[in-house]
């Protein structure tokens, strides 16, 4: 097919963007990851599998990301249902704005907000102590539970929005009919709402999983001393150890392994990526 001049004028910025800012740097990283001191080598990849600290960190990061994704999903489903089906239409826009409001400030600011609330000399401890619930301040920061809470908080929106958009198209009369026929709430969720929302659940989960896996700030600041996240290891390789080759290899391992986890997740739940767009 013959393209007109206008087509090329409009497509050029996109192509330049993709090639210069995405394709070339990745290619550069890929080449870097196969370089040793002076020659081509697979050592950088071998290190990942032979050094327990590296792959254990990855396993930990992946497991926590999966847990975070599941928690986010469980919290986001009722929120999305409330926004689309239960809230009055006038209230709906307001609720969506409320959901988005925290995202108008940067992640760093949000995390520091949580740290001010939760720290030993923080707001929450002040109230607990003045209510007489504890006499000793409790350290609520720097543990895995807090870290996961922070991660769920930062990813909520990315789960709620796809869910809201699929729930919009759910016909109310289906739920009404189920109620009339005496179906229980659990039954309605299981047989009507969740199957209908599948595309939203899958795309939301993928986005949240990738965001959490690639997060750096939240685990680092809220997780504290035990929270080595895989991204931090990549950062350390690049910045602290000056070992760009190793860091590049870790970067690609993160890409490949996280894609593999998503592929596995889709297989296990019987989904196909192509169906998401429909």
């Amino acid at each position, binding site marked *: 097919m013959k393209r007109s001049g206008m087509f090329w004028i409009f497509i050029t910025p996109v192509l330049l963007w993709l090639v210069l800012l995405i394709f070339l740097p990745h290619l*550069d990283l890929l080449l870097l990851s196969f370089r040793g001191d002076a020659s081509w080598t697979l050592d950088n990849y071998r290190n990942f599998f032979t050094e327990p600290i590296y792959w254990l960190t990855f396993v930990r990061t992946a497991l926590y990301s999966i847990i975070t994704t599941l928690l986010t999903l469980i919290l986001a489903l009722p929120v999305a249902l409330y926004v689309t089906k239960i809230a009055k239409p006038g209230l709906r826009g307001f609720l969506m704005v409320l959901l988005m409001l925290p995202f108008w400030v940067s992640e760093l600011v949000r995390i520091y907000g949580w740290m001010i609330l939760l720290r030993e000399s923080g707001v929450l401890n002040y109230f607990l102590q003045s209510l007489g619930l504890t006499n000793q301040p409790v350290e609520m*920061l720097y543990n895995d539970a807090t870290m996961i809470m922070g991660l769920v908080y930062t990813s909520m929106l990315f789960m709620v929005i796809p869910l809201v958009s699929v729930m919009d198209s759910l016909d109310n009369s289906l739920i009404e009919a189920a109620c009339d026929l005496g179906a229980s709430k659990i039954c309605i969720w299981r047989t009507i709402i969740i199957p209908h929302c599948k595309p939203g659940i899958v795309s939301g989960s993928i986005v949240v999983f990738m965001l959490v896996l*690639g997060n750096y700030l939240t685990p680092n600041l809220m997780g504290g*001393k035990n929270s080595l996240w895989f991204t931090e290891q990549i950062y350390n390789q690049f910045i602290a*150890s000056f070992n*760009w080759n190793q860091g590049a290899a870790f970067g690609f391992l993160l890409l490949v392994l996280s894609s593999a986890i998503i592929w596995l997740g889709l297989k296990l739940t019987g989904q196909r990526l192509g169906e998401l767009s429909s």
Partner: protein
Amino acid sequence: MPLTLTLLGDFVMKKVVLFAVFLMLCSSAAMADTLQLLTWKGYAPKELVDKFEKETGIKVEATFSNNEEMIAKLRATRGAGFDLVQPSQDRISSVQKEFKIYQPIDYKKIDVGQIVPSMLEAVKKNTLVEGKSYAVPFCWGTSGLVVNGAQVKGATSWKALIDPQYKGRISYRLKRPALIGLGFALGFDPFALYADEKGYAAMLAKIEEELIKAKPLVKNYWANGDQLLESVRAGEVTVAEAWDNGAWKLHDGNKDIDFVAPVEGALGWIDTFAIPAKAKNLDAAYKWINFIMKPENSAVFTNAEKTATAAKGAGKFIDPAFQANFDRSYPQTVIDKIKWYPPVPAKLEALEGKVLDKIKAAN
């Protein structure tokens, strides 16, 4: 922001340079004379930046960073993008040998009369690569302990960082100074072991073991200076590894908190000026060095940041409060004991990186 993006950013930069060149050709007429300065937070006080612009017409655009990121940024662009950077003197020569990101300093263009001669000589010697030196000293200080004297008695050694009696109140930065300090405390001489990779690895193994064993005692590993100051001020941390200037800032608010130079010797650093290989505005870079090293200007920096300057004759412009802090923390005997960082060989940083990862990952 996901880390991968930031890292990609650095790679992207050199591709973007092509773009930038193109854009600059279009807009060069509108470009003012600017100095791109890559430095530490606080090293370019606004007062001095404004004064410099008024005197020379050159605008200073400062980017704040730390040693590791400065090196990574310059490495990604092969020494382009900045006109002047301020790494520590021990992190220059091995980086220069490996990556060639700096250009030699033309000391004829520096007003050397303004700089403490012994410091200039030391920095010249430590940054010597193939017969040329690469840095000019700017300021100096030490890493030691910040201690809250009201709650902590007898923390005078680096060993305080692994002392069970301060359980839950200890903080340090999981970086080189903590390793080196503890190395001295455990009876090693890390700086002598720089030349002996095996011996250094054995020392690191011992330190790793100690730090992992003492990990339950740690409140947190601080990542930025403000975070540490905040936790010490709030009383959540009572003994921490810190820079002298941070400790003095705290002392001004609470007299119980003060800097303690460990008995093994505080770790002395000198931050410098170095010029990247592809700096565009060399003239502005030298002008800024000569400007900020004037006694009255360097005193402005010292008074604001509570960091000792390498400028000569700044004494009469220095705030008496700073002088009092300095005299209290650094009697001559303490100064004589300071362990100055020698240039660090590149291989050792990879070893250290792994040890630090292991400590962070341990439970």
